[in-house]
């Protein structure tokens, strides 16, 4: 039996700078940034006061008052993105066997925003140690256990196959899509609605990253605060958002004449078994994930046209992944454009992996490599081609996208054109 091949036939993105894949791609291809001073709460007490926020009105995107009331912001993002992706795919879900359609949603921190707000209420501003259940919102349980995100998406699209939330920190967005692709490949599902969502811009998240000085304190220049690979970078900018895809088996996509964005040709995840937040400079485990993903795609490193980097903008990360790319691709690493869209949309934790898959897919769609904004003078230890500031026209058939997260997780995905443009 020949292995089932998995392709992306629908997508939707909610990212800072504008809801919708179209707005997202304009931002990236124009090299604009969506980072700004925090408006969601008073950031004065915090070390880091910038974030990449989305101007999002759930009612504008078809959510009902009840849905808005019961769902955390991240769940709202997931549902809106899922509906968008399904519409984009052109599949009539009503005519499908619901048991053959599944859902995976990635999220690193679940309903953090809702939990932070609700804790404040039930503890009366932190005053009560024994918090008061009488003030708890009825939907608090859905915040406690974020599998509610997958449940909401499954209800929204009518899926009754395998459903779960994948939560591997900042690689959740790649791992969720990788997990879904494996379910289709092994025959457990024909269609997967897969992606990820996080809405972490809340006081508790800002405080926890302040405590480890992971986020940038550059609040005097918020639009230029996220500077991956630049010598002046000093931490990441927290973001929020979601991207969801419709995944299906290649032959069935062809039979129905679907628009095929990309094939998920290879995926792997490895762990550094080193430190919950730290990275070794050699990038060995990320390199291994990349090697295995390329292997699964049956492609040599030289086939990679573009690397969508994790590029969080911490010194440790930028050097770690630069080392990883060189380790696997050798001399080809120097010839391959590498960019970080976190320079423009910030780092939305579990969501960003899927948002970066979307950026990779759109780079293939338009044959344009998005830039690394705010990159003026690269860290001397980061000596690859990071596509500074301006997008680049380039025939792009094969993209490698990677992620690295707390817990030591390192993930890599190889996306290809099922019909290659290059010969």
């Amino acid at each position, binding site marked *: 039996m020949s292995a089932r091949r998995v392709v992306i036939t629908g997508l939707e993105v909610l990212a800072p700078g504008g809801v919708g894949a179209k707005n997202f791609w304009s931002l990236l291809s124009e090299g604009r940034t969506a980072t700004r001073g925090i408006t969601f709460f008073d950031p004065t007490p915090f070390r880091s006061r910038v974030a990449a926020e989305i101007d999002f009105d759930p009612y504008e995107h078809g959510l009902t008052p009840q849905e808005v009331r019961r769902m955390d912001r991240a769940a709202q993002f997931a549902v809106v993105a899922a509906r968008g992706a399904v519409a984009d795919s052109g599949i009539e879900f009503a005519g499908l066997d619901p048991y053959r359609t599944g859902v995976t949603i990635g999220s690193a921190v679940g309903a953090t925003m809702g939990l932070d707000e609700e804790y404040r209420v039930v503890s009366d501003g932190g005053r009560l140690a024994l918090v008061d259940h009488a003030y708890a919102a009825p939907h608090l349980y859905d915040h406690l256990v974020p599998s509610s995100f997958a449940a909401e998406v499954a209800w929204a699209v009518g899926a009754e196959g395998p459903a779960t939330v994948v939560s591997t920190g900042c690689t959740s967005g790649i791992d969720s899509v990788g997990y879904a692709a494996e379910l289709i490949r092994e025959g457990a599902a024909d269609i997967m609605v897969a992606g990820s969502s996080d809405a972490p811009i809340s006081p508790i998240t800002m405080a926890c990253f302040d*405590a*480890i000085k992971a986020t940038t304190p550059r609040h005097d220049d918020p639009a230029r605060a996220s500077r991956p690979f630049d010598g002046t970078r000093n931490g990441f900018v927290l973001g929020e958002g979601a991207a969801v895809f419709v995944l299906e088996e290649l032959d069935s996509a062809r039979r129905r004449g679907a628009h095929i964005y990309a094939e998920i040709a290879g995926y792997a995840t490895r762990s550094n078994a080193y*430190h919950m*937040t*730290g990275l070794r400079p050699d990038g060995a485990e990320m390199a291994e994930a990349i090697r295995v993903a390329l292997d699964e795609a049956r492609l040599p490193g030289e086939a990679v046209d573009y690397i969508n980097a994790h590029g969080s903008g911490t010194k440790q990360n930028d050097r770690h992944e630069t080392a990883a790319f060189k380790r696997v691709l050798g001399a080809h690493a120097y010839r391959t454009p590498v960019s970080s869209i976190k320079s423009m949309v910030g780092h939305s934790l579990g969501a960003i992996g899927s948002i970066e898959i979307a950026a990779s897919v759109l780079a293939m769609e338009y044959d344009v490599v998005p830039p690394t904004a705010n990159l003026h003078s690269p860290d001397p230890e980061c000596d690859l081609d990071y596509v500074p500031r301006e997008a680049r026209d380039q025939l792009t058939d094969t993209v490698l996208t990677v992620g690295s997260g707390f817990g030591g997780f390192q993930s890599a995905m190889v996306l290809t054109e099922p019909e290659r443009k290059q010969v």
Partner: protein
Amino acid sequence: MPADPFTLADLTRILLEAAGAEEGVDLDGDVLDTEFTALGYESLALLETGSRIERTYGIALDDDLLTDALTPRALIGVVNDLLTVSRTV
């Protein structure tokens, strides 16, 4: 503002609260000039320790300090310098 200068005993106490002790390391021994990494404390442990020192003593440690102050003696020195400054201004 505590009147006593910051001592090794203060640092040891805060380290234990913030990050526990590595097996086989005796913090009551002669550790003043042993690097923190050799005592089993990595960056995260030092960040937690640093933030507890900041809160307890009302001082602000430099961002890069915790990577530069490699030994207890060096860190104690920096904290005492800051305490002197904050007492004299």
